[in-house]
């Protein structure tokens, strides 16, 4: 039995997709225009093949500026920052969730609530004290200072705790009888069993790290550690003509890594979901 396609549903779907894709397309097409054309307002939706060069040019943009930092370099900084933040968050929150979910120690619930409380204190709220602490540790303008304050994560801890609590007690006991100590159990059982959650979380956290703006703006005054998000903003100046085509090309570059991570990890965690059996 073949059903007639649901035209309305497809229409809505197409509209939604277009709504999200259009700005990206405009940026892509814009990147191929000349800066002058964009400044005049001549923005075409058809890309100019000759203008594709700006995607290459933009990577070297900024080499002549005062710090001499190129957009390509900023992309690398962003990538490293997002990676360290995502992995750091996963490591710290998985371990703290492990402690909270599997061990009985004094003040366990207080620790849990303290972690939960930080959910209400994102970087933006505690930015001044965080800056003060980092500055006293002389970590301003360092990669550590850029990433560390962003690593502690209540959300991930909470999520891991729920995942770990769902692990059957018998599995824990079987591992104990097999002679697995706590850390061995954590590495051999808990992490593989929660692999799908791990992958999903990595995607979310990577994008979170990639999109950080406010903290890098404060923590980095030396251009060498500027992430791409800051770099793009700095390209837009008021005292000279903004190279809009390069800004747009930079934007496209800045979108690509998170998209790649999502696509890559999506396949991975779907596979994880179908193979896992708790």
């Amino acid at each position, binding site marked *: 039995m073949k059903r007639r396609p649901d035209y309305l549903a497809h229409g809505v779907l197409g509209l939604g997709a277009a709504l999200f894709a259009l700005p990206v397309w405009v940026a892509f097409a814009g990147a191929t225009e000349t800066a002058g054309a964009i400044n005049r307002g001549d923005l075409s939706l058809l890309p100019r093949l000759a203008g594709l060069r700006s995607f290459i040019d933009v990577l070297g943009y900024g080499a002549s500026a005062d710090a001499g930092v190129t957009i390509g370099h900023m992309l690398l900084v962003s990538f490293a920052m997002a990676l360290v933040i995502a992995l750091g968050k996963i490591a710290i929150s998985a371990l703290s969730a492990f402690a909270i979910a599997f061990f009985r120690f004094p003040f366990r619930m207080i620790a849990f609530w303290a972690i939960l409380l930080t959910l209400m204190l994102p970087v933006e709220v505690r930015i001044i004290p965080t800056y003060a602490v980092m500055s006293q540790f002389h970590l301003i303008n360092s990669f550590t200072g850029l990433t560390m304050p962003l690593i502690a994560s209540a959300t991930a801890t909470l999520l891991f705790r729920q995942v770990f609590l769902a692990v*059957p007690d*018998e*599995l824990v*006991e*079987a*591992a*104990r*009888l*097999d*002679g*697995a100590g706590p850390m*061995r159990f954590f590495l*051999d*059982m808990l992490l*593989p*069993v929660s*692999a799908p959650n791990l992958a999903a979380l990595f995607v979310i956290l990577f994008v979170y790290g990639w999109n950080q703006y406010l903290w890098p703006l404060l923590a980095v005054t030396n251009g060498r550690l500027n992430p791409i998000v800051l770099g793009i903003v700095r390209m837009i100046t008021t005292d000279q003509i903004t190279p809009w085509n390069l800004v747009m090309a930079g934007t496209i570059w800045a979108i690509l890594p998170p998209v790649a991570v999502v696509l890559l990890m999506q396949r991975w965690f779907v596979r994880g979901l179908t*193979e*896992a*059996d*708790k």
Partner: protein
Amino acid sequence: MARLDLRGLAKSFAATTVLHGIDLALADGEMVVIVGASGCGKSTLLRLVAGLESPTAGRVLLDGTDITDTDPSRRDIAMVFQNYALYPHMTVFGNMEYGLKLRGLPRAEIARRVDEAAALLGLGPLLDRRPRQLSGGQRQRVAMGRAIVREPKLFLFDEPLSNLDARLRVQVRADIRRLQRRLGVTSLYVTHDQTEAMTLADRLVVMHEGRVAQIATPVEVFDRPADTYVAGFIGDPAMNFCPAVLARGGTMAALAAGAQIPLAGGRHAAPDGTRILIGIRPQHAERAAAPTGLAVTIELIEPLGSETLLHGKLADDTEFALRITGPPGPLGDGMTLPVHLPPEQLHVFDAASGLRLDPTPPGAGVGSGSGQD
């Protein structure tokens, strides 16, 4: 291979006492089944032996060595869990080798043991599969394999068949028994299923509310239950209990339902007039041709094919079940059926304590049995 000794093992969780001092000794190679209703403490007992919980009092001795405070992984004990607890992300081979790998056994030795166990359990073709890809029975066998490869001194089984369907259960039950005999490993098996308990056990431990009600061979538990709890728990359909008082110097019972019936085996030591319970299994009560002074009013008829189960009440409203061979025939609800209680099939219990009362046969020694032989 190994003897297990439990001495005064007790466990309390906060204010509730789950186990009140259990004493139990398992001989080398023996299969002891602990049976009881849920909440009787049987699983807790097993977990104490495994070391997953620590006892409030008492000691656990394995081959004379006190292992009460030993880490579970160093006790030389393997356990098969109710839900199998297979590691979901590892293959069958991975599941079986994991414990050995952590123990630091050489690769060749691990491979030999896993192959042996796999051959024994027919798991050979499944070694590369993951638990998710296995059926319930196969998972159960992997769980067994994981226990076997460790070559432990003691096997612990925590209701390993309860997640299987009825048909498979019968088969796996027989497999477990054969395997245990063949390997000769001392085993402690916990179940709430009395058929499982009866068929598997060398000796049976019936537990009730954190205490041992009886320890004996399955046949003895069935034939000479130590108290009314055991008598009612073991045997299906359950035993009938008729209130009565002792009479004629402890040789007769005057049933509350009216009749006076003789008791086998001589005098019962308690004074006449002692309130007792007469127990008889539905398959032992007989349908009488002529009136016997005792009759059942039928309330429900359950035909089971080769036999028929009749549920009804005696004259004093005591519930009474009767199993007769063959189809119900002309019997119908509301009919009254005279029954005969063969003296040698009766079990006499003290009504107050619930404990079994045995007669002292004239001239003979103590305790040669009032039940059937």
